[in-house]
């Protein structure tokens, strides 16, 4: 009868499950954006977001509801993506292979920073950062999460978070300069 168990629909969900689903729905855009910023390929974002939900659902009852949810979601997404990379690093090239081509040949090279490609440029530059520093940059500089919360979510010290932020910003600026000049490789 196992196959029947697979296809039966949901029984009436109790309140914690409903709250978890609502929270997931509310922050789905953020989860997608975070996964993309961390370098997830478009074809894998949806499955990774589902994994984020599974973890969220598993830990929902033990979450501190007084704290903001997004730093926690970021930490979950970060760990899931890292584990995913470790699993598939031998089979799948890391990062978006088209990123260099997209940014190295902009339609309007002179005004690239102000153009519509600025977002793609930022994403391509972020891809050149190691995951540990990219996570801090995304969390602090893009999501504007306080560094103490960043350190907590990534399970690192506050000093370590600041160190990654400093170095990451330098690397990001370098990557943006190189990409803006049309250098395909760092």
């Amino acid at each position, binding site marked *: 009868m196992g196959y029947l*168990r697979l296809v039966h*629909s949901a029984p009436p*969900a109790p309140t914690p499950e409903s709250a978890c*689903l609502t929270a997931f729905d509310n922050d789905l855009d953020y989860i997608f954006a975070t996964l993309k910023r961390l370098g997830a390929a478009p074809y894998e974002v949806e499955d990774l977001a*589902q994994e984020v*939900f599974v973890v969220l659902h598993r830990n929902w009852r033990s979450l501190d509801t007084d704290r903001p949810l997004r730093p926690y979601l970021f930490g979950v997404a970060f760990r899931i993506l890292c584990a995913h990379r470790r699993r598939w690093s031998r089979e799948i090239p890391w990062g978006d292979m088209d990123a260099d081509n997209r940014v190295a040949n902009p339609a309007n090279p002179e005004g690239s*920073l102000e153009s519509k490609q600025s977002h793609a440029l930022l994403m391509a530059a972020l891809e050149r950062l190691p995951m540990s520093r990219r996570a801090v940059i995304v969390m602090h500089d893009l999501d504007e999460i306080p*560094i103490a919360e960043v350190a907590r979510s990534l399970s690192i010290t506050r000093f370590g978070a600041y160190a990654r932020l400093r170095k990451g*910003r330098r690397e990001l600026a370098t990557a943006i300069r190189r990409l803006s000049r049309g250098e395909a490789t760092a």
Partner: protein
Amino acid sequence: MNRHAPRLAPELDALLEDGRVIERVPDVVRARLLSRAHATVAAVAAIRRDPIPPVRRRSGLTLALAASLALAIGAAAAAATLRGRAPSPLPPAPSAIPRTDRPAHDSALDIMPLSPTVAPQSTFTAKPHRSTRSATAQESYAAEIHLLTRAQVAYASREFTDTLALVAEHGRRFPSGRLAEEREALRVRALAGAGRTEESRRAAAAFTSQFPRSILLPRLGDP
């Protein structure tokens, strides 16, 4: 907050400002993900309420035995072919899907049933081609699945009266259907869930005599 971090260059700051925009997930993707999330919640709830019993290991063993048997039959057929005896089509691999179009058996498989849910296949007789199966049989099977799925949903929701009604309907429409074994097992459990202990016991006894080798037998006592 940034006393330990360098100040951002203006152009980098502008770029980051642009990158802070969060795009909305397309509605179709959102709907798909929420559907998967709902399914996850339902599956977890079902597992908590109805944990998978250790009989799974026995099921694996049964499958392994079935695979071994299929290999042995294949080897025997190959040997017979090599010896120049009447060539015959290779026997199909045992399928985990119950079938109704069970042809008459003329071999040792008749006395060695693989398992109640693994229907014995024809051994050296020609298997009816897939395209020759009537659409009616497939529709009937689909209707059986649909009906029993509804019964399973009702059981999972602990609506035992509805479950029994659906099981009875299945019994009326498909008295010797392909899912009769699953139906009867569900009837036993639904009766037990409804507190009709004596009827449940009688149904369990009938099930045991009708399906003595069923892998569902150990589950009949589950809540």
